[in-house]
């Protein structure tokens, strides 16, 4: 099985009274298992020529659900400062806004679509899903 590692590095010299540095690494495994996630969509890059409303970037119907350890990565690859991507779970459940350069990495239960809404033209995005097959 595949070995995939996700590492988060958070640093700031001045957001608190002392410097802050944190690194966390996770080996991406199937739910309740030491076996690595075995599926990956690749990183999809899109440039939306028009503003989007509830555009599905991750469709729940494609994935097994609930007892899963899927992961979703999304990044706003636009430039500037203002053209955000609103990320929601199906049913207009707002996760938050990704401003240009921002990225997110979340666990995904496979029960709801992941959707994006944009307010400007030519907003660029990239996204990918690491997931587990039903094969043990």
């Amino acid at each position: 099985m595949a070995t995939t590692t996700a590492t988060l590095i958070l640093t700031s010299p001045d957001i608190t009274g002392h410097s802050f540095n944190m690194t966390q690494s996770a080996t991406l495994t199937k739910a309740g298992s030491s076996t690595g996630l075995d599926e990956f969509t690749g990183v999809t890059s899109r440039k939306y020529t028009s503003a989007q409303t509830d555009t599905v970037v991750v469709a729940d119907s494609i994935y097994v659900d609930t007892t899963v350890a899927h992961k979703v990565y999304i990044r706003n690859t636009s430039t500037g400062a203002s053209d955000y991507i609103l990320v929601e779970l199906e049913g207009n459940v707002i996760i938050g806004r990704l401003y240009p350069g921002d990225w997110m990495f979340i666990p995904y239960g496979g029960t709801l679509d992941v959707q994006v809404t944009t307010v400007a033209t030519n907003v660029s995005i990239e996204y990918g899903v690491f997931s587990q097959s039903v094969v043990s």
Partner: protein
Amino acid sequence: MATTTATINLTSPDITGDPLNLSKTATLTKAGSNTGLDQFTGITTVVYAAAQTATNIVAAAAYADTTTAHKVYIKNSSTGTSDFVTVELGGSNVFMGRLYPGDWCFFPYDGTLDVDIDTSAVGMKVEYAVFSQSAAS
């Protein structure tokens, strides 16, 4: 204003036919601005003696909402492979996903919905934090 960066590295020698090496760094700024986020909760670490259901870890009431670029970090710091943390959004506890031991997540937060967690076992250790923007410009 503060300068905070968040870097993600995604690597795999074998999940595709070619090695995956993705590294992206974001400088955390206020919504629509080049000004850095200026508030941080610090990293909270909690060991829950009992399994939790819809335990609030990020309260929407504590943050400015909508036009914001807050960020939430959560990690299941438990050991083993089976004891998971369920991440949920809002009063209806909408299911986002499960964090298995060692898993972390980092996502934007607009301050309109609470972030709650369930834990599947006793004695689980969770850490979490919020980087946020004040109402000050």
